[in-house]
């Protein structure tokens, strides 16, 4: 059974079917959308059940697609991508359910939403670089519409800014992909196969591949978003409708980190190592800058958006540990942080959306004393804020701890890691201030009778996320075990590149013996 193809394209089928329905049949459209998002999630759980965590790529599918350029329709998942597929499935179901309140043009809404899901899943399961790029770009278009039609007051500006920024990043990625293709061998042996490219990584060492590395890095850094390419994020997050913010923060940002690991680390390990001193500084800036920007916000959604920049900084910090003595911990931490950030920040956006639906404002100054009026809401929000600020026992802590552990394993540049700890402190400050301003103190009487506690549907969307936050906080093994083999592969890859004398003879690339394709699959 082509399991990964089913996971990827069921949402697309649902999207097309929805387009064929009449706008008036709202119940049917919503039901169909939920089914189209639910089936891939169930299938991805099935895939997880059959996944061997100690092995490499699994559930592979490989068909020839465009022989003229040796492009294949090649899918597969490993420990790096499977958690992302699961996360995408989960957050998509929850976001579709959370979108049931949308009344405006719902046929188009769910069409774009499900198209977006296909794009995201496709990015995580593709093993051919061309296919990867196609899915990568497919995610841009629906997001443009979702922000632009259903967004907030500045939606049009936010939508085009998002589109232009990320397209600018990704077109450079396209050139990088092409450059890798042309450098991957003699005319007959060139390939877009990401596993094969990774196996041939000695070919891509040396200074003349710097611009390729940077072109690819820029494409991913815009998505992460890593400083200085982060300026699109607050606007897009704030203007997007709630469910879209969940997807944006929960999954689209992870596509950038995923690409950084899957491409820059696995295909260009030599330059990745040389880039680490810069990456660690970028991680540091992301952490500190994101945290301080978040502290200055009075709009809750904006605060959560900036905290995402801060959290992605931890991810980068974990990745920057790749040459240290605790590199496995750092990489595991980065991957864990991707999942936990998706769950925690996704639920925070849902929570902020709940209060915005009732009060039509997200300004913290206008609230106060809500704990007594909305006790359940206050409880859920408190748990997730604590998780986000890294309270031990909740999911956020595990990822941050491992990222820092890994980063301290590097002997150089420890000062930046040490300074980054300040970010945790600031994060705690602004989340606690948020809780204090919104839930404690004097109740603003203008909300009297207008703020009801969470409804059944809202609780339904939040409960799984909160439960997972607690579960992964006390028992992180399911994620760490799944990612183990992928982490080991990346660590081996980079340490092999570090051990090689920097492949000082890239000019004789034709002379480098190419590994036989049969052995190309990393374990």
């Amino acid at each position, binding site marked *: 059974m082509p399991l990964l193809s089913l996971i990827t394209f069921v949402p697309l089928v649902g999207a097309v079917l929805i387009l064929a329905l009449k706008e008036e049949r709202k119940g049917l459209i919503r039901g169909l959308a939920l089914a189209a998002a639910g089936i891939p999630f169930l299938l991805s759980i099935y895939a997880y059940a059959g996944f061997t965590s100690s092995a490499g790529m699994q559930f592979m599918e490989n068909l020839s697609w465009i022989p003229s*350029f040796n492009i294949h329709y090649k899918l597969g998942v490993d420990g790096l991508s499977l958690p992302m597929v699961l996360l995408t499935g989960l957050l998509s179901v929850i976001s579709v359910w959370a979108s049931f309140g949308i009344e405006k*043009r719902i046929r188009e809404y769910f069409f774009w939403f499900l198209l977006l899901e296909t794009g995201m899943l496709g990015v995580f399961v593709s093993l051919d670089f061309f296919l990867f790029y*196609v899915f990568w*770009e497919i995610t841009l278009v629906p997001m443009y519409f979702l922000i632009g039609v259903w967004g907030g007051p500045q939606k049009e500006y936010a*939508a*085009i800014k998002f589109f232009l920024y990320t397209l*600018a990043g990704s*077109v*450079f990625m*396209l050139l990088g992909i092409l450059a890798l293709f042309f450098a991957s061998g003699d005319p007959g042996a060139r390939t877009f196969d990401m596993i094969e490219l990774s196996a041939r990584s000695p070919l891509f060492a040396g200074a003349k591949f710097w611009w390729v590395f940077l072109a690819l890095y820029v494409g991913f850094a815009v998505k992460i978003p890593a400083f200085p390419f982060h300026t699109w994020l607050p606007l897009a997050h704030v203007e997007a409708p709630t469910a879209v913010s969940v997807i944006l923060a929960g999954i689209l940002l992870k596509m950038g980190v995923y690409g950084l690991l899957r491409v820059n680390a696995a295909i260009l390990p030599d330059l990745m190592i040389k880039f680490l001193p810069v990456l660690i500084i970028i991680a540091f800036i992301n952490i500190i800058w994101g945290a301080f920007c978040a502290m200055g916000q009075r709009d809750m959604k904006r605060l959560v958006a900036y905290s995402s920049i801060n959290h992605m900084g931890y991810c980068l910090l974990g990745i920057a540990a790749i040459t240290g003595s605790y590199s496995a911990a750092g990489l595991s931490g980065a991957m864990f942080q991707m999942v936990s950030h998706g769950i925690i920040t996704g639920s925070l956006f849902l929570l902020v959306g709940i209060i915005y639906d009732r009060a039509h404002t997200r300004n913290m100054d206008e609230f106060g004393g809500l704990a007594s009026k909305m006790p359940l809401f206050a409880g859920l929000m408190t748990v997730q804020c604590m998780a986000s600020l890294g309270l031990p026992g909740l999911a956020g802590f595990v990822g941050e701890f491992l990222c820092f552990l890994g980063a301290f394993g590097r002997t150089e540049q420890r000062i930046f890691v040490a300074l980054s700890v300040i970010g945790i402190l600031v994060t705690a400050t602004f989340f606690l201030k948020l809780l204090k301003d919104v839930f404690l103190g004097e109740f603003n009487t203008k909300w009297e009778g207008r703020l009801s506690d969470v409804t059944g549907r809202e609780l339904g969307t939040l409960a799984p996320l909160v439960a997972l936050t607690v579960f992964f906080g006390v028992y992180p093994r399911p994620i760490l075990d799944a990612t183990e083999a992928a982490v080991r592969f990346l660590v081996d890859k980079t340490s092999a590149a570090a051990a090689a004398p920097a492949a000082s003879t890239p000019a004789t690339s034709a002379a480098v013996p190419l590994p036989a394709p049969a052995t190309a699959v990393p374990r």
Partner: protein
Amino acid sequence: MPLTSLLPEIVLALAAMTILLGETAWRRASRFWVIPGAAAVCAAAVLAVKVPAASGGMFVMDGMGRFLKIVVASGALLTLGLSSGMKSWRPRGISWGAFVSLLLLSTVGLMLLVSSADWLMLVVSLELVSVTCFILTGFLKDDRRGSEAAIKYFLMGAFSAGLMLYGISLYYGVFGTTSLNALRTADLNVVPRLPLVGAAFFVLAGLGFKMAIVPFHMWAPDVFEGAPLPVTAFISSAPKAAAFGALLRALPNLDGLGVSGVVAILSLLTMTVGNVGALRQTNIKRLLAYSSIAQMGTVLMGAVAGGDSGRGAVLIYVLFYLFMNLGAFACAAVVADDAGTEDLGAFSGLARRSLPLALCATIFFFSLTGIPPLAGFVGKFSLFAAALEHGWAWLAVAAVVNSVVSLAYYAGIVRRMFFDEATRPGRVGLSISLAACVAAAVAVTLGAGLFPDRVLAWVRSSLP
């Protein structure tokens, strides 16, 4: 050379004459004449595949010729569909027979152009295209803008033809013949350099006018705006495709002539001027005119790169461009019909009034931008690949930056269609022939984007 190799052109020319005479004889000044016209174009396209190959002398019939003849015929067919389906074209009392036969004659010229093996043949066929296009541009005699555009187009065209003839005379001076083969077989190290480079530049200038390459692009926005919409659709696609075919045949190796650097700079300027110009337009035809300038600059990159991959990328792109561009024009025709204006504001709220049409238009505009999985992306991908392969990385970087800039105005139209509220009530209706045009263009844009290999293989096998 067997005369049967000329059958596509012969059929089209005979059909053009018959339609012209038939209209006078039967006095049926109606849309009826589109039907025999379309039938003749289809017949010519089928014949272009079937007729025997020919080479030597004035005329070649090879793989590239067949490919481009089909491209040109597709353009003519879509234009016929577009013109017969556009309501705002009808009440002006135009002579349909004359319109159809002029379009067919123009197509004959284009088909001859892509098969020319001799400069004289090339000039004659180019003039046939030009003259018919001048008349088509000013076809609505009571329209002052159209007449003005026709005069501009004519003056510029005459000037460029002069430049081109001058280049050919230099070419003749170098080689003692006007055959295109002379350049291909000559040893470039022994022929006198300066006259040859001069010939290349003047010839490029002549073809550059047709392709609207900077600095020979000035006519395009005014002519595109002034000409009736179906004519604009035609002259923005088919002649450009054919002119690129002629360029590939006449100057297959820009690098060998030592002019590739200059042409690369022209390519860069063309994309940039086109894109920057398009950003500020408020009229859909003018916007598409600038967009077409920018797109042709991108295609020129393939000619600069050269080699099989570069030439192949040019051919792929002109095919895909023809369909996505004519698709965009078909959508514009529907919108302009409905609103009675060609202002961009006419697109406002189209998604509320006809979601399928808005989605189709979105596909065309995003394909023109180069977003996968659409045909335009495959075309741009091939062009970028060719540029990188042949060491034109800086040009490829400039081209991708330009792609991002072009998103700003293409997405501007999409924004109007989806984000803005409708300014007019009711649904947008479209005639059967316009719907067929849009459907055909969408089928190619989406189908070739998802499964491009057949087209890529076809192009590869048709390269000379």
